[in-house]
């Protein structure tokens, strides 16, 4: 697979990267919608119902495959592009570059890497339990009780703190990524640029903030 990946031109790889990135951003909103159910003081009825729906609905299951494919390709392409980029400058400068560039735009591979580490932990905590790869004592009617699992995780201050930091990092990743994706897809016009920039920044603040509220709510209010 890798060799055929490598044969794609730089622009083809980037277009896929951008396209999948935007797709993942849509998914993130859906995920946030489900997570916000945790804020309801109903003993997890809504949250578990949403988790149950996501786990059993056939349309969702098809999308799940697309989603995982999207994640994997986005990550693989990111790594391939980055390795090629490192190879493109075998002798480095003595004085590191002083050019003015958008904040953290040079560090997408690192912000992306941090998000990837979290993603693995997140899978171990939730998705692998659902698949039965990781055991967990919290079950209701044969299904893992994700509400209790989430509650237990957020009760750990260290986990909650890392969770908050992660979403701040993700916010920076998305702020750069959103406008970059449109530029890569060829959408750059004075008429839309400020709108794209504005929407990307608002998204990069609002969505991570939505996720961040949850551990804070569990730690401070519950």
């Amino acid at each position, binding site marked *: 697979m890798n060799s055929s990946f490598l044969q794609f*031109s*730089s*622009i*083809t*790889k*980037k*277009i896929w990267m951008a396209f999948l990135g935007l797709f993942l951003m849509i998914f993130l909103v859906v995920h946030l919608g489900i997570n916000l159910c945790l804020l309801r003081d109903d003993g997890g009825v809504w949250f578990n119902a949403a988790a149950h729906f996501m786990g059993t609905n056939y349309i969702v299951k098809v999308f799940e495959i697309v989603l995982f494919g999207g994640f994997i390709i986005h990550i693989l392409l990111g790594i391939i*592009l980055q390795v*090629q*980029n490192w*190879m*493109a*400058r*075998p*002798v*480095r*400068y*003595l*004085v*590191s*570059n*002083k*050019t*003015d*560039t*958008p904040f953290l*735009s*040079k560090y*997408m591979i690192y912000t992306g890497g941090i998000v990837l580490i979290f993603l693995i932990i997140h899978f171990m905590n939730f998705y692998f339990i659902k698949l039965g790869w990781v055991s967990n004592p919290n079950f209701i009617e044969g299904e893992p009780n994700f509400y209790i699992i989430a509650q237990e995780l957020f009760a750990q201050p260290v986990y909650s703190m890392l969770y908050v930091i992660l979403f701040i990092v993700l916010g920076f990743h998305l702020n*750069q990524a959103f*406008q*970059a994706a449109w*530029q*890569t*897809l*060829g*959408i*750059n*016009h004075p008429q839309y640029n400020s709108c794209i920039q504005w929407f990307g920044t608002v998204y990069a603040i609002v969505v991570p903030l939505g996720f961040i509220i949850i551990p804070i709510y569990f730690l401070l209010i519950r």
Partner: protein
Amino acid sequence: MKLTLKIWRQKDAKSTGKFVTYSIDNISPNCSFLEMLDILNEQLIAKNEEPVVFDHDCREGICGMCSLYINGRPHGPDDAVTACQLHMRKFKDGDTIVIEPWRAKPFPVIKDLMVDRSAFDKIIQEGGYISVNTGGAAEANNILVGKENSELAMDAASCIGCGACVAACKNASAMLFVSAKVSQFALLPQGQIEAKQRVMRMVKKMDELGFGNCTNTYACEAECPKLISRSNIARMNREFMCAKVI
């Protein structure tokens, strides 16, 4: 002005180079950066030492030959100028100035600060032209060109092929240069006939030569002495997508 210069010295393409430090005094702030290097070289020649080799030609910002990475910025600390248009008044008395060659795999060092930029020529050979049969000159007004497009094409055509975009980019990507060369034709009717092959072949060559991939940091645009806009990169991406899909 009294300055300390830390300059990359490399005997030839095969040798491993190193930085050598020079002191230079009595430099006028009105001196251009290259004149300052000329003065240094005169002093080196007088001492029977090898002068520092650096590329230059027009010395007025139009040929794109000068190519110095000065204190962490291609063409130095001024905006929208080439190294030959840079003046010493942009520095302070007593400054240390580090001068490096462009660093990119497709731009190997030939000697000292001079790099081989023929990779750009190879990209141009893949499609940076239009084919016109010889014969009587046609009436110019037979092909109408909109004002906006003609302006944008001229803007793109002002790229002097200096390579500062590659030098500035953390990925050594040539996207700004290639996109300017694709755009200057894509915007005009004369460029339409070969448009599809042009963008596909030029991008393929760019990849083959080992330039990096664009990661949208826009360092290229920030350092381009001709202010080539990144909108050209978006245009090239569009051209590329259309050429592939349609």
